[in-house]
């Protein structure tokens, strides 16, 4: 741990709280730290607050629907007014309305439904959307987009409209779009949900090749065992457990208490 003291954690949450607009508590004091380059799984039952937590890492929450200036509508006024201390840091930078643009360059967020993320007419335009917003010239953006498409093995679909692609392909295009922003922290929301086995395998392989810090919210526990050395278990807006994946997911009592099940690969084999 001592060697990590000088480098700020890639992600740091400290007492993160959030209430839905209807008053229901979504996150009640979440603390966590991710070291640079770490690949961490975030597991928990439906409604545990996983997706809500992920949106905080990019400054998209809290404060949805509140009045704010310009297009940084996702950020809370509370931090600015000093009513509440900041609770999210990325690479040592506090997430607030002033740092939003900077934070969004650092954090790449992959949404669960690819159709939410693919809004341009062609695949290439979509992947180039991030770089263009970051101020890249058209040529640069185009080049970056092509490189990222090659990285996800979809060089050939650059000029196709997104609705002509399969679900797995759309998902990979989304990842290319996120990678094109050159993030240092990758936040993935259910990356393998609804993928067929081959698509899932491909996606897992892809995630493995990425060197950035990764936080993966998922129900795919086998994937967690494969690529995430560390797991954080979230339930009812609280961190229930945080530790090595094998140990944590192998604890039958713990996982069953929190709406999960023992991964098949950790189940003692029974003779047929």
């Amino acid at each position, binding site marked *: 741990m001592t060697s990590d003291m000088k480098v700020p954690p890639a992600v740091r949450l400290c007492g993160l709280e959030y209430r839905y607009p209807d008053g229901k508590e979504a996150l009640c004091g979440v603390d966590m730290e991710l070291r640079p380059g770490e690949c961490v799984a975030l597991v928990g039952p439906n409604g545990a607050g996983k997706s809500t937590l992920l*949106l905080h890492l*990019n400054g*998209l929450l809290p404060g*949805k629907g509140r009045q704010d200036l*310009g*297009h*940084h*509508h*996702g950020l809370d006024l509370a931090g600015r007014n000093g009513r509440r201390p900041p609770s999210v840091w990325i690479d040592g930078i506090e997430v607030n309305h002033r740092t939003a*643009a900077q934070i*969004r*360059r650092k*954090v*790449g*967020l992959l*949404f669960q*439904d690819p*159709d*939410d*993320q*693919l*809004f*341009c*007419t*062609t695949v*290439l*335009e979509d992947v*180039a*959307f*991030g770089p*263009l*917003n*970051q101020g890249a010239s*058209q040529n640069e*953006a*185009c080049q970056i987009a092509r490189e990222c498409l090659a990285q996800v093995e979809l060089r050939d679909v650059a000029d196709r*409209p*997104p*609705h002509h692609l399969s679900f797995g392909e759309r998902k990979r295009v989304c990842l290319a*779009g*996120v990678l094109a*922003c050159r993030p240092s922290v990758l936040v993935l929301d259910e990356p393998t949900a609804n993928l067929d086995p081959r698509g899932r395998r491909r996606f897992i392989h892809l995630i493995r090749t990425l060197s950035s810090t990764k936080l993966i919210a998922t129900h795919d526990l086998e994937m967690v065992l494969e690529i995430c050395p560390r797991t954080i278990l979230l339930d009812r807006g609280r961190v229930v457990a945080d530790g090595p994946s094998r140990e944590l997911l192998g604890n039958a009592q713990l996982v069953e208490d929190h709406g999960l099940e023992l991964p098949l690969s950790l189940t003692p084999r029974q003779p047929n």
Partner: protein
Amino acid sequence: MRLEALDDRGERAGPVHRLDARSKLLFAVAFVIAVVATPIGQWRILGCLGFLLALLVGISGASVRSLLLRWAGFAVLVSLLAVMVAPGLPARAQHGLGTVILSIVAKNSLAFLMMLVLAKVTSWRDLLQAMLRLGVPRVLVATLQFMERYLHVLGDELARMSLARRARSFRRGSILSWRLLTGMLGMLLLRSFDRAERVHSAMIARGWDGTFHSLD
């Protein structure tokens, strides 16, 4: 429901396909203005414009059948409107009710068919680009771009909803009851709102600051 009708634009490259989209767009708009400006009862001018359109359809190689099929649905609606509107028009006294109704339907059909032909010979992307270059505000073009993108998504969503409804309906017959139909449309609207929020979040997450940049 797959929205294939939206997909076949510009896929076969004919001589008209290769023309600059801007000139095609300007020509189509000029044609529509000419049609609209033609006074009621001037059948010769309308005939000439119709002939010009037929010529264009011939050159473009667009399928007449598919054009007419799309026009037919629209024509029914316009005819109904024409029947309702025509009795109140001052031109009725001069030309008679029949002529006025026919004129409205003919003019609408010519304009609509022209737009269909334009859409047939120009890809959606080229059309949007042409609008941009002609000085149409970027926000408007971006809105059209989103509309096209999400028509497919919403179309699929509607198809799934209607399949789920059919899977649980035990009455025969395919005609929807009004209550079900309005319920489904309401649900679709709500889902679209949710999706719009998520799309907005996804845009902001990739650094969107309210200005649209384009690759071309």
